[in-house]
């Protein structure tokens, strides 16, 4: 397929071509990435209006189930919803199992929905670039709500929070000690915390947990002047509270838009994006650098054996990289 066919196909909302374009973005081949870059650049002017929502929480908290319920509700209101599921786990062999769609039985059949789980692939920091670019493709294909599901372990939640308008953290009510387990960092990223599975016997626990989290949030310095993150309860199964969260998202958006914070946020995210690309590119160039490539195995061995110290070795590698810079420059 020609580059223009991808661009036209995405703008024409062709599901297969949207999918193929995402594959190009995720590809490890430089030739594919080049085409992807051109496509994303051409699509960029057709984006910017969608509501971008990030959802995180520990495995099993109910993210996928929540997205099924929430997504169906949005589709009913004539929204077009794209769901990107980023799961950084993979088996020893490097293969991943992507099972989020098993929980999205009905949403996955809706004409107005598009759900794409992404394998981790083990690339260095690749999640950032790929997810951002995939969001652009989905927006250009007319999806007005983009939901990114990410597991709340490791770095992925910080990454995802830096590319969405609204970051929802799902939590579970525990036996009183719920606050000990979570990282303070995750709370700082949240625009709203929702205690999920507030149904059946769990309703009372959820209410208690809500109060605990409200106290915890009060101790944090808010990151926005006009928004203090509320703590809500919901059930992805009975649908209680799902609409309240949507109203909260809309309210958040209205406030951020009128105060100019949304524009600020997106400007800052554009910069974040640029820096992430620079960092990824530098690492990539380092490994592709012929001078580095030649000496790397020996230097690694030497450090392992304790012959060379780590600081000397790092200096040497960076020196080699600088020496060979012109050869690898723009190589692909």
């Amino acid at each position, binding site marked *: 397929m020609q580059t223009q066919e991808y661009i036209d196909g995405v703008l024409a909302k062709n599901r*297969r071509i949207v*999918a193929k374009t995402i594959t190009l973005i995720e590809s490890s081949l430089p030739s594919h990435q080049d085409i992807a870059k051109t496509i994303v650049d051409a699509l960029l002017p057709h984006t910017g209006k969608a509501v971008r929502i990030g959802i995180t929480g520990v495995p099993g908290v109910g993210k996928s189930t929540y997205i099924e319920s929430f997504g169906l509700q949005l589709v009913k209101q004539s929204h077009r919803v794209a769901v990107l599921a980023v799961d950084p786990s993979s*088996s020893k062999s490097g293969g991943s*199992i992507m099972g989020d*769609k098993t929980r999205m039985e009905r949403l*996955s059949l809706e004409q107005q929905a598009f759900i794409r789980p992404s394998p981790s692939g083990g690339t260095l920091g690749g999640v950032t670039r790929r997810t951002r670019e995939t969001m652009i493709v989905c927006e250009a294909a007319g999806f007005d709500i983009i939901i990114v599901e990410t597991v709340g372990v490791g770095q992925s939640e910080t990454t995802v929070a830096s590319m969405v308008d609204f970051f929802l953290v799902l939590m579970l009510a525990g036996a009183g000690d719920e606050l000990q387990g979570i990282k303070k960092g995750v709370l700082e990223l949240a625009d709203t915390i929702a205690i999920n599975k507030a149904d059946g016997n769990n309703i009372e626990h959820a209410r208690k947990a809500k109060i605990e989290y409200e106290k915890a949030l009060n101790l944090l310095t808010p990151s926005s002047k006009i928004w203090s993150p509320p703590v809500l309860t919901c059930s992805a199964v009975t649908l209680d509270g799902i609409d309240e969260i949507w109203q909260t998202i809309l309210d958040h958006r209205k406030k951020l838009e009128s105060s100019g914070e949304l524009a600020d946020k997106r400007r800052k995210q554009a910069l974040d994006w640029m820096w992430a690309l620079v960092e990824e590119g530098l690492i990539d160039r380092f490994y592709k650098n012929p001078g580095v490539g030649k000496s790397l195995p020996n230097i690694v061995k030497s450090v392992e054996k304790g012959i060379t110290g780590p600081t000397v070795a790092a200096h040497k590698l960076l020196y080699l990289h600088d020496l060979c810079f012109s050869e690898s420059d723009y190589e692909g």
Partner: protein
Amino acid sequence: MLIDQKIEKFVKREGRRPRILVSSMGKKRHNQDTRLLATLFAETGFDVDIGPLHQTARGTARMAIENDVHIICFLSIENNHKELVMELARALKAEQAENIRILVGGAIPRSDYDFIYSAGVDQILNSVRIDKEAVNRLLDLFE
């Protein structure tokens, strides 16, 4: 060539791992076998998508296209593999996605082999598991 090497070669050529959708079609519960198959593929080095239970052929085709997989794999449980294969092939063709390979496993009588091969199946497993030989044959489809 070892399977690992074949997969490495695949990744070098395609820019990603072979991606397979393991789909549960039909009404009966056979989640166990499907899950196990998915795990085996992932451990072999495939990226594996699992679909919701009780998928239709059309739903499976759509998910395969949306996730852009190379292969669809399903187990025949209710002895309706003939219809499923035909519907699946038709659904893929309607979306210009007939290049997606189809792998069918389960209890499939020898006498059905010709029929389902000509209906568009690329490989048949005569069980609900995969072994080295089956994976090798599957990867060879892409050589």
